[in-house]
């Protein structure tokens, strides 16, 4: 399985503005960026990287609609067919009383569905150990990484140096 290993060369920056400049440089030099890692979301980084808009919210809408249907149809069935009960003299099929629960299940389905989808798409989850390039990218360093398989190491290193990376490291993932 040696083919699955990736030889990564990456640079660490002290400032997000440096990172954005470096990404722009890499784009103009037509270097294929493996990934960038930042401690927090950076405004304006997505368009520079040319990332498409996430489709997670579309999934969220579908999960939410599923929750709406589950709650509404579920309660309809329970309160009219399965176990009809009279509450406070109201009809069996009391739509206003269903609305709060419908709302709650909509939110619940959307929230859980999106979380699970997000974890699966990003290969995260309990018990999963992900290798990462450097611990400090979760703290105060901004990382731009190249895959040596698709970008020549020299070009990558020179670009990282040129754009002010404070550290340049290599790692095999």
């Amino acid at each position, binding site marked *: 399985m040696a083919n699955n290993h990736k030889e990564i060369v990456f640079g660490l920056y002290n400032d997000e503005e440096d990172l954005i400049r470096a990404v722009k440089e890499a784009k103009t030099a037509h270097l294929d960026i493996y990934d960038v890692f930042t401690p927090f979301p950076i*405004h*304006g980084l997505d368009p520079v990287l040319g990332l498409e*808009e996430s489709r997670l919210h579309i999934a969220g*809408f579908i999960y939410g609609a599923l929750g709406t249907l589950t709650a509404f149809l579920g309660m309809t069935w329970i309160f009219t067919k399965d176990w009809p009960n009279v509450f*406070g*003299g*109201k009809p069996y099929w009391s739509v*206003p*009383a269903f*609305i*709060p629960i419908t709302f709650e299940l909509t939110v619940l389905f959307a929230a859980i569905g999106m979380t699970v989808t997000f974890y699966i798409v990003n290969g995260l989850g309990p018990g999963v150990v992900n290798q990462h390039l450097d611990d400090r990218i979760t703290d105060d360093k901004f990382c731009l990484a190249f895959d040596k398989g698709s970008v020549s190491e020299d070009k990558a290193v020179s670009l990282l140096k040129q754009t002010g990376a404070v550290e340049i490291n290599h790692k095999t993932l």
Partner: protein
Amino acid sequence: MNQYIFTSKQRNVLIGAMGIGIISMVLTWMNDDAFHTRFWSNFLHNSVFFLGISVMAAFFMAVCVTAYAGWHTTFKRVWEAYSSYMYVGVFFMLILGLGVYMHWHHLYHWADESLLDPNNPEYDKILHGKSSFLNKNWYFFGTIIVVGSWIFFSRKFRQISLDEDKNGDTSYSHHKNLKVYSAIFLPIVGFSSAAMIWQWVMSLDSHWYSTLFAWYTATSWFVSMISLTILLLIWLKSNGYYKEVNDSHIHDLGKFLFAFSVFWTYLWFSQFMLIWYANIGEETIYFRERYDNYPVLFFGNLIINFLVPFLILMRNDTKRKFGSVGLVSIILLLGHWVDFFLMIKPAALITANHALHSLHSGEHGAEHAADPHAAHGAEHVSAFVEGFTLPGLLELGTFLGFLGLFLFVGLYSLSKAPLVPKNDPYLEESLHHHV
């Protein structure tokens, strides 16, 4: 073009709209019942609606300043202009207040003081209990004091903002001053707007009350204000003004439109469900009347003011594109106007019919049946009676007239100062606003 020019063509269009409004109101007056109920309820409806929009503009400016928000700074002159309508709006409310003294109209059941006399066979204990708040003096002088205080603050905001253009410096003393006034204004407008809504709108159903009503109504005002802001900004941009206002500003306004439409629905439903669940006759009467006699508007209200903005504005790009957000703004402006129709019209008709009924039965009962307008509202009637259970052309004409006046005052005020303020500490942030 940093200076808006109010051209004579625009003036004429707005004066034309006002003319339509005056003609509609005259026609309504001429074809009305003995108390001119349709005229007065339309007058109250539009006066309250547009006065509320201008209050909300001042309120939201104060919110933004207090919350250290900078995104709105480029177009804050639009809100200053909107809030200047309060000078005119208070005048209409005072006509209504004077009408309570002079018995020009019979909109408010509590205005009939004979009901407060324990010796009267029609003595009304509930209204007697409420009479320390629901009385003509509170209505008239409360309006003067409360709206007067709103005018005082919005005038201050405007003065400080204009002075900042001329004399502002990097000590930002103007902005600090503005912050103090905003912070004082917020609790005042928060509590007093509720009192005024009770007085102007909720007391039409004089036996009924709901603690949620003021929030619900104020949210209706707020959504209308955001709609009108979006529409005016789009219009100004299409005329070459406000190059500084970009789609991110519109996006933020669209978010407020979306969020407060959902909040409005939340309040609407909270009020409805609690009353429905408790099922106490004194409370359900409000919805019973509207559900039975106004079914089109009752459900249409929810579809227009909740489903339309919820489904259309849910996506990111529909809040940014002028076409979609503008369309939703038009729908919501009319939708919340209809919402006010539904708050005001049924109650006003019941009260007026009650008064008409006793008037007619006191004189000659036979003519009561012949009066074509006397039956609406109180008894079960068709759901499609123009001007009564549905807004008719005269109602729309009146709306156009008030809208014309509102925009005339607003645009006149807008033309008196540069569109983009100078020396505001948040101006740079607003110019580079990007979301």
